[in-house]
């Protein structure tokens, strides 16, 4: 059953018809064309679909769209909205933390929450923060380095 909802995504209001029992991920990708949020597994296992909801990282495949109403949703497209990359995005490029890149946006969103809560996280804090996200290319080494670099201000 379809239902009309209003979602606030990256600071913009969107009125959109959604499946009542559908996940936020599908609405972001197929409804709003925000393809930076990736589908990896649909079961909350990989983190490719991570977005921020009221500043907290969530798997968008595991959140009902209806639950996201009235909350501030930020996707990767919301980070460089003014054309200037976020320090995390810069750091991911410059450290070589991006390989196939399919998981990258999810990692950046999770790191965004971490850095909004902690100024200078140590390595353990970074590793635990990103432990809900899988990467098959990098061994996480340069991802950790990128987050540390961004925490220091790039």
């Amino acid at each position: 059953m379809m239902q009309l909802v209003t979602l606030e995504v990256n600071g913009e209001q969107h009125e959109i018809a959604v499946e009542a029992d559908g996940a936020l991920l599908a609405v972001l990708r197929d409804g709003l064309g925000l393809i930076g949020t990736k589908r990896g597994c649909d079961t909350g296992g990989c983190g490719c679909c991570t977005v921020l909801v009221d500043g907290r990282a969530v798997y968008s495949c595991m959140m009902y769209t209806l639950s996201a109403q009235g909350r501030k949703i930020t996707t990767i497209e919301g980070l460089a909205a003014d054309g200037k990359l976020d320090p995390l995005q810069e750091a991911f490029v410059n450290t070589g933390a991006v390989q196939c890149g399919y998981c990258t946006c999810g990692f950046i969103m999770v790191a965004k929450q971490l850095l909004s809560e902690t100024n200078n996280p140590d390595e353990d804090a970074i590793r635990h923060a990103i432990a809900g996200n899988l990467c098959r290319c990098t061994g996480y080494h340069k991802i950790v380095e990128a987050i540390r670099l961004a925490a220091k201000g790039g």
Partner: protein
Amino acid sequence: MNDYSVIGRSIPRPDAWEKVVGGRGYPVNLRLPGMLHGTLLRSPHPHARIAGMDASRALALPGVKALITPADVPRIPYSATFFKPATSAAVVRDMLILDGTVRYAGQPVAAVAATTASIAEHALELIEVQYEELPAVFDPEEAMREGAPEIHAGVRHNVIGRPTYSLGDIEAGFSAADHVFEGVYETQRVHTCYMEPRVCVADADAQGRVTVYASVQHLFGLREKLAFVLGLPVSSVRAVQPPYIGGGFGGKLDLAPIEPLAALLSLRARRPVRIEQSRYEDFITSSRHPAKVYLKTGISRDGQFTARYARTLLDASAYASEAPEVIRVHSRFGLMLGYRCPNAKWEGTLVYTNNMPGGAFRGYGAPQGCFAVESQIDEICEKLGFDPVEFRLKHAPRCGDPHPSNAAWKLDSYGFDECLVRGAERFGWRSRAKAASGRGVKKRGFGMAAQPLWVSGCLGAPDTYEHSGAIVKLNTDGSADLATATIDIGSGQTAVLCQIAAEELGISVEAVRLSGGSTDTLPVDAATHASRTTYASGIAVKAAAAAAKKRLLEVAETMLEASAVDLEVREGMVRVKGASAHAVPVADVVKRAESPFVQITSKGTMQTVLAEKGTIIGTSSLAPPRNPSPASAQFIEVEVDTDTGEVRVLRAVYAHDIGRVVNLAGAEGQVEGGLQQGIGYALMENMRFEPETGACVTADFLNYKMPTAVEMPRSIESIFVETDEPSGPFGAKGLAEPCLIVPAPAIANAIYNAVGVRVRSLPITPEKILAGLGKI
């Protein structure tokens, strides 16, 4: 450092800029106007004959535009393997797009295309299939027994083949041995776990020509296999190259059912059809074959190998696919060729079962062999008191030796000894603690393993595509467009190939852009696999860049009033060698070539000549001359909790003869990612199946465990030995695979060093360690 201006630098991958803001280029993002959603109906049974199928209710559902059943597909048997010719004698053609018999749980039996995904899903529920269930067999040893179910008609005892390898006199070798070691080493089925799901969009035009966009590792393999299974000429299929795909690791190296089914649905509906696999479907599409290796080694008193015998039982799964090639690579590069021994013998058995398909996975048969060989060498060294580093050095080939897999070649560049020596030094191997040291319940252990011989492509393998090609085109702003049909699966050629082109052209790497194309416009290229791209595609890119540069210098002759042979390009300037002041920018030379007959310049009008006219372009299409061997050594420190059996990998040092580092950050990234897959293989990854139905019960990331950032060691060091391969582009050779082959035995050896428990089957779970300690 070297004398190159671009080669050897760490450069950001050009595609990373786009990937951090969303990454539009993944095939999974593609949508076409009027596109339909395709879905597959899959068998719940592991072995059954389809006695009947009624799809009339599904077809009648509004929104359903096409439906394919086994009766609708061409009866053309094929092998899914991309990188061998479809009609090669080296492949077993035992598959149909949809078959009247299913041989594993989850095998597709029908496909639907509809205007929405939910209509397509609903339509599947309306298809009535009468299955006549057949007895199934999942264990390869049981599958070979008399009276076991026959999985493919006429294949006696389900044995596809019994390949062998032999050198010298094995009996005499064992007679001469003072010590004999033997053991059985088992490895499990694992999945590549690429992050981007397999997806395919097929678009048939009014004349029946099919354009296909897919997340696969071989553009020309996709075209050739798709045309073959559809019974079309290759020119009726156009495969479009994506700018990049979301991982592969071998898991996208063969034709999945979705590609021909999307094409058939599109041909029927005459609209684009998209099929995107669920993660469950990805898990059951391809895997690393499980193997059981019996290894027996004869050693003389002074520590020389006198005989090496091995026997491998490989579960080929429901369809042969890559298995015949996997077991060949396994026998040579996994088991027999890495260390010198005058007498060697290997016997392999490839067996059909009703298990999900095997396929390619980084390392391709070698991990199953390396685990056996490198574990047993550790056992030998432990028992006879040899140092594991010295022992390996003693038996390894030397630089300049004939290549063990092809006597026509020599190991022209070969730095295995340096890998061992430098790796051991960096790791502190000589000062490592004694076994089972450390107070309390947590014990530290140190282990190593090596892969003395590997490949930089497939030259020498039977019937395997190995050529590459490139197009380099210079622009009037001094930049260059580079096109090759190689697929960047995350492996970094977007950066590496641009560096090679830039170095050859004498322009900055930022001025080279990798652009796309399709099988209509690009020269043929082999797959992105077998550690080949930097070496083999790199040679082609260098040749195309050299051809473009030759033309550039010819056009510059009149501008610089010098012969082309006296000209060079450095830092974007064409100059007379030795006279750096006499130079013109590359951009000006290209403008001259592309300009009308009178060129207007800042110095006024300038006459140009007919012979200079045209785009400055260089092309290449060639096979690499050699298949040079990389080599590698892995050193690992672990901590084993003797109360819980939990293993933590604390530190890894990896040394690899890469010939020449092209992009340092990219090379390190390969090693670090390979270690993640290697630790997973060693300690946790394992595909499990419901024993009655053969249904995969680990087909998601909650049940299939791979290392997260927390399980990875804090310290990973990569040492790159640069031996300057004479045939390689600027000396480079292969990197990608050994870094996943060696971690499992190195970890097993470190665990033994820590707690004295020798585990000969992967994954090494806490249960196996506690059982070894006698605690459970």
